[in-house]
C-alpha cells in the first residue's frame, strides 16, 4: 500500500513554478528521502503534502485520503516537523511537550509517560525546566522534533530535522526515527546531508528546480550513477602537469591547488596505471594516493549538475 501517492503535483508563486508536475509514491513503513539543492522545491512539496498550502494542479492521495477534498482528515493522521523553527517561548521544555500532547487530545496519563520518555530519548532531561526562549538553537530544534512524537500518527514529515544538531544528537534522532519505523511508522524526510539519507532512507528522490530528476534506492542510485570511482593523488611539489595528463582517456581530472589531483573515472584501474606511469617517467614523486567509491554526495552533485546543464 502507498502512504503517499502524487500525480503531476504543481505549485506556482506568480509566474515562478516552484514545483513542476511531480509524481511520487511512498510505501507504507518506509523512510523516503527527499533530496535537492536549496530552492529546489522540497519544502513547497512538503507543505502541499501536509495540506498547509493548496497545490495549483495535480492529484494527491495521502493515507488513502484525497488531499484536496479532505485536508483536515489527513492532518489528523500525520505528524509534521517543519523546516521553520516553532516553539512556545514562554513555556518550559516539559510544559511545551505536555501542552502539545494536550492539543492533540492525548490522554493525560499517556501524555505524562511520553513526556518522560521523550525528555530522555532526546537528551532534554537536564533542561526540562528551562524556558524555550532561553534554549540554544539546537536544543530548540530537539524540542521541536521530540514534541511531534507526543501524539500518534501514521505518517511523519520531517523537513531537515537535523539542521543545527551536534553529531551525537543527530545520530540519536536518526536512531529514534528508525525505531519508530520498525513499529510501522512511515517517514517522509528531507535533508542536505547525504550520509544521513544513506544511513536512514529506503528510497530516495532527488528534486531540482521543481522537477524530480532521480528516484531509487540509495544502492541502485550508486549503481546507476556511481560506477565511477574517485582517485586522489597528492604530489610532493607544485608542478604544471595538466598538459602531461591531458592525453588520458575516459576520465575527468581536476587540479586543486596544484598538488592534489582528483580523477573520476569508471575505468579507474586503467586510468590509475596510466597516470602513475606518466608521473614516474617525468620524475614526479607521489606523496599519497587514495581510491574511493563515489559517495552519494558526488552522485547528488553530478545528477544535479547534469539536470542544470
Amino acid at each position, binding site marked *: 500500500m502507498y502512504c503517499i501517492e502524487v500525480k503531476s503535483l504543481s505549485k506556482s508563486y506568480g509566474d515562478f513554478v516552484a514545483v513542476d508536475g511531480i509524481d511520487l509514491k511512498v510505501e507504507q513503513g518506509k523512510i523516503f528521502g527527499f533530496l535537492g539543492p536549496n530552492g529546489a522545491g522540497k519544502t513547497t512539496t512538503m*507543505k502541499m503534502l*501536509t*495540506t*498547509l*498550502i493548496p497545490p495549483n494542479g495535480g492529484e494527491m492521495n495521502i493515507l488513502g485520503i484525497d488531499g484536496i477534498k479532505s485536508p*483536515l482528515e489527513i*492532518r*489528523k493522521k500525520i505528524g*509534521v516537523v*517543519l523546516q*521553520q*523553527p*516553532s*516553539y*512556545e*517561548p*514562554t*513555556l518550559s521544555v516539559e*510544559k511545551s511537550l505536555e*501542552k502539545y500532547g*494536550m*492539543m*492533540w*487530545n492525548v490522554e493525560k496519563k499517556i501524555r505524562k509517560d511520553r513526556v518522560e520518555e521523550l525528555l530522555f530519548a532526546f537528551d532534554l532531561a537536564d533542561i526540562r525546566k528551562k524556558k524555550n526562549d532561553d534554549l540554544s538553537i539546537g536544543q530548540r530544534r530537539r524540542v521541536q522534533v521530540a514534541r511531534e512524537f507526543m501524539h500518534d500518527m501514521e505518517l511523519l514529515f520531517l523537513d531537515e530535522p537535523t539542521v543545527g544538531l551536534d553529531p551525537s544528537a543527530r545520530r540519536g534522532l536518526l536512531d529514534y526515527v528508525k525505531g519508530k519505523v520498525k513499529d510501522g511508522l512511515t517517514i517522509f524526510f528531507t535533508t542536505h546531508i547525504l550520509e544521513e539519507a544513506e544511513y536512514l532512507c529506503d528510497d530516495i528522490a532527488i528534486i531540482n528546480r521543481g522537477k524530480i530528476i532521480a528516484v531509487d534506492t540509495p544502492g541502485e542510485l550508486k549503481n546507476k550513477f556511481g560506477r565511477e570511482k574517485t582517485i586522489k593523488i597528492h604530489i610532493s611539489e607544485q608542478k604544471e602537469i595538466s598538459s602531461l595528463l591531458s592525453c588520458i582517456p575516459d576520465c575527468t581530472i581536476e587540479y586543486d591547488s596544484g598538488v592534489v589531483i582528483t580523477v573520476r573515472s569508471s575505468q579507474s584501474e586503467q586510468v590509475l596505471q596510466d597516470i602513475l606511469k606518466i608521473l614516474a617517467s617525468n620524475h614526479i614523486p607521489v606523496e599519497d594516493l587514495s581510491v574511493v567509491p563515489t559517495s552519494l554526495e558526488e552522485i547528488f552533485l553530478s545528477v544535479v549538475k547534469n539536470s542544470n546543464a
Partner: protein
Amino acid sequence: MHEIIRLVNRNLTISLNMGFVIWQIIFPLIYIFVAGFAYTALIHQVPFGNKTLDYPAFIATGMIGFNIMNSTLISGIIIWNDRRHGMFEQILVGPFTRAQYILSNVYTIGIIGLVSAAMITAVGYPLFFKQVEFNALTIPLVVFASISGSILFGSIASIISTRLKSSEGFNVVINTVFLFFAFVSTAFYPAQGAPPILSTAFYFNPLTYLVDIVRAGIFGYFNGLVATEMVILGVGAVVLFLVATKLLSKLEL
C-alpha cells in the same frame, strides 16, 4: 475535548504568566487609587445622567473598560507571537482549521475580558458602592460591554498583528493605538467640560462607548444615547471581527 477548548487551554497557558496578571491588577489599581484621589482635587464631581458621581467612582468604573481593552491586547500578541515563533503554521498543520484557530482566540479574549472586568469591579467596588444602583439591566449591560468590547479591541489587535512585519513596528503601533484609545476617551475624564474638539474626538473612540455602557449598568442609568452606543459597539465588533477573520484566513503560509 473539543478542538477549540484545547486551543483556548493552550492560549490561556501561554499568555497567563505572573507578569501579565500583575500588570492587569496593579496598573489599574495605581490609576484608581493614586490618580483617582489625586485628581479629586481638580475634578470634584462628574455629572452623570440624573446624578453626580465622585471622581474616584467615575475613574474606577472607567478602569473596567480600560482593563477590558488592555487585556484584549493578548489576542494580538498571541497571533503575533504565533507567527513570529512558527506556531501559527505548526497549529495549522495539526488537527485544526483556521476557523477554529480564530474562534479560539475570540473565546480567549472573551474569557480574559470578562475576568478582567470582574476583577476590577471587585477591586474598585469600595470606591463606587455608595453610588451604585444595580437593577435588572446591570449585568446584561456589563456583560454585553465586556464581550463586544473585547471582540472589538481583540480584532483591532489581531488586524494590526496580521499587517505588520517587524516586532518593533508591532509594539510601537499597538502602543500608540491603544494609548490613543485610552486617553481620548471618557475612561479617565468626562466629555462634559473637555474642550469641544476633544469631546467630539471621544466619540470616535470605541472605548468611550464601552465605558459609557459599563457605567450605565453600574449606576443604573439607561437612555437612548446608551442604547445607540450599544448598537454602535455591537456593530463595530462584528465588522472588525469579520475583517480580522478575513485577513487571518488570507495570511500566506
